[in-house]
């Protein structure tokens, strides 16, 4: 009758001297897994040009109309590219359909998770702000 009580006390005492598993959140941040669905963004090539060919498949597949305003243009060698592209994060449901639909791997969900903003307009991203300069976990002030 007494032994289980002592066992319990031993367990809790052991925990006292075990390192806490707490993540000190604002100072320490968790690196999300590669499959984490953050918000969609346009990826770039090695040379810094966008991969998007303005096919609008992502816009068509988007169930919540978060992607809109794709304006195509044509380059000197008849390649298509967008001159305007809007990702509306106030509508985005982070489903990842755009990423699946894209034939060029040009739109991908990144690994950001701190997306709250005071100003709603900051969440409606034009083509420049929707483009990812390099693939790394960025801070929310980037938005």
């Amino acid at each position, binding site marked *: 009758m007494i032994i289980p009580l002592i066992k*319990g006390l031993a*367990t*809790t*005492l052991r*925990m*006292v001297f075990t*390192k*806490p*598993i*707490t993540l000190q959140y604002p100072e320490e941040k968790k690196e999300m897994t590669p499959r984490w669905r953050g918000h969609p963004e346009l990826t770039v090539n090695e040379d810094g040009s966008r991969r998007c060919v303005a096919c609008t498949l992502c816009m068509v597949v988007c169930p919540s109309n978060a992607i809109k305003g794709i304006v195509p243009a044509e380059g000197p060698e008849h390649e298509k590219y967008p001159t305007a592209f809007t990702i509306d994060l106030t509508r985005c449901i982070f489903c990842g359909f755009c990423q699946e639909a894209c034939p060029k791997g040009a739109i991908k969900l990144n690994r950001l998770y701190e997306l709250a903003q005071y100003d709603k307009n900051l969440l409606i991203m034009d083509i420049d702000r929707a483009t990812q300069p390099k693939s790394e976990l960025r801070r929310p002030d980037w938005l």
Partner: protein
Amino acid sequence: MMNLPLLIVLTAVKITLVLVVFLTAIAYTVLMERKVLGFIQLRYGPNRVGPWGLLQPLADLIKLLFKEDFTPPQVNKVLFVLAPIITAVTAFLPFAVIPFAQNLLPPCFTIFGQEVDLTVAALNQGVIADINVGLLYVFAMSSLAVYGAVLGGWASNNKYSLLGGLRLSAQMISYELALGLSVIGVLMFAGSLSLVKIVEAQKSMWFIVYQPLGFLLFFISALAECARTPFDLIECENELVAGFQTEYSSMKWALFMLGEYCHIIVASALATTLFLGGWQGPLLPPIAWFVIKTFALVFVFIWFRGTFPRFRFDQLMYLGWKVLLPLGLLNILVTGAIILFLQR
């Protein structure tokens, strides 16, 4: 008697100092509890306010002071206000007879050309009042504490509060007996009710060595007296919301909390005094030994809270009346027999 005013002033200063230190200790016991519970649950506990969370008690105090002091319309106003005051005051009072050091000051000193005898009213000793019925006084005061909870539960005019208050009174009455019986062995060895004498009687050996069962019974009963886990049925959230404190807010609630943590410290200090040799110990100054022993026991209180689930009410009563009470009587019997045998 020329020195009477001076002695009164000195006594007041001493009591104030002890009270201030004691209140600070209570505030930091709350922090200690939150920290230790945090460690047990693999968390850090409060660590945002000040370095290592050390200013958390201050922040809590400020928060509580600025909270709305709400008195529900259906309550009995006088008793509602009186209850937390009774709880806090009766929790403080037992500390008056607990010796926390040997001698603080020399027996006499000269001020303004006057010889002041400090041995009057134990002014030079590390105890506020060395009265010869010390232990009885402690039990009397700690029994009064039940009035705070019962009146609070009654005056709140709320079924949960009332049930909490009733439970506490039943619990206190049951465990007061076991608590009283558990210390009789100590009294047989020390031959005095004065806590100062009891500490002095432990000069060669702590009484826990002679009275291990007595210490265990005392500690379990003290847990129940303080209404701490695993005996915190009076405020078990899943049945009674918060027991007798359901309707209380702001500083009235804080007084209940103050009383609760005060009870813990007093119970630990009492256990230290009765069983662990009080302020006696090698090398370190007496007051340090007293603080170390007391807070070691406070840690055990918190440790128990972090480990054990709550008793059911019938289990609580069973343990009190059918386990602790017979064991207490057995302890007295065996102790008495041994003392009688040794005297032959």
